């Protein structure tokens, strides 16, 4: 792999990581505030996480 590809992959991973961190953090906060809604929050978190993951993987694969 050439350097630009690696840098791009790194950027994607940074972006994805930030996004996942934000989702996870917000979900944790939500669960802490409303423990009875934990199930719903978890499902929503997983779906958003999956969408983000799809985006990141798409970018990684397009760049490969």
């Amino acid at each position, binding site marked *: 792999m050439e350097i630009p590809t690696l840098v791009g992959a790194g950027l994607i991973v940074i972006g994805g990581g930030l996004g996942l961190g934000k989702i996870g953090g917000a979900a944790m906060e939500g669960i802490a505030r409303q423990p009875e809604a934990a199930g719903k929050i978890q499902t929503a978190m997983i*779906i958003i996480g999956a969408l983000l993951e*799809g985006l990141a993987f*798409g970018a990684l694969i397009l760049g490969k």
Partner: protein
Amino acid sequence: MVAKKSINFITVLVFALFSISTYADDGEQKPGNKIDTAEEIKEYIAHHLKDSHDFHFYTHNESGKHYSFPLPVIVWTSNGLKTFMSSEFHHDDSGKVVVDQGDTKLVKLHSKIYELEPGETTVSFDADHHATNAHAVLDFSITKSVVGMLLAGLLMLLAFGALARGYKKGKTIPTGFSRVLEPLVIYVRDEIAKPNIGEKKYRKFMGFLLTVFFFIWILNLLGLTPLGFNVTGQIAVTACLAIFTVIIYLFSGTKDFWGHTLWMPGVPYLLRPILAVIELIGFVVIKPFSLLVRLFANITAGHFVVMSLIALMITLKESFGPVASTGMSLVLALFIMVIEILVAFLQAFIFTMLSSLFIGMAVEEHDDHH
């Protein structure tokens, strides 16, 4: 009772497979070379991640014997359909062994079958190691992935058929292994289908959603066994699953859905065609693409990481000694393996979840805002 019988059947099947493997194909090849350099490991992993035409278990180092059993090759060449067993390639994967099928000469190169141009007898390569005088053929072989799919399908039919037969016999509460399966079916119905598609319409899509969920899950788990399946890591497989979802939600789309997609109400008229294009691309290209890439990439990455961690045993032997490197690789691989078991479920769940979400978007009635 039925579950017990089916388990016995599976055991017999597995033993049968192994017994075949021990005597099948004792081709005298170049002695099996030990894999101990980084390049070889890389190549080995790349080879594993691809589909293969035979079921390879193990190669004996000294004798060079391959313990594997061949699978049928079915290819559509320029001279029609050709079928033969993959043992004819003698485990060659570099295009050296030419299989002569009368009017057609076939070689296998990096897990793909190529047909030599007429008149050629050996493959010649260009600088990038691409074959120059051969072209790929349509390959309908019963490859390892196809075997995996058939196995998963068989397992599903046996397990859920037993559950269904239990109900038919008048048992209201399943017993044995079926008791584990019933909550899973209820989980898919109540947590995935009903909330996303809606109480009224979910029933029509349950067949697809349940099948896809368990199919992906079983294949993901099969990928974690030492049998070496990597079915859901084949882009063709995930693409097929995603395209099924697309076909289902495009064909079950309501008038409302098409109205909202192609002529979005409440937006300036100039913007509507642009929005229609964006929405269409989203539904036809981006959503299935993200579905197929997510599953493919997760499983491929998982296999890659697990195999790399196992390979640490070899690559770190120089610097840490055999015991430390083996221990380290075992601990790390075990850790990732546990995560992979979670990922195996999660990816099946996500695929089904998003499929039902998209189907739910397509069948939704928007009577609340008109």
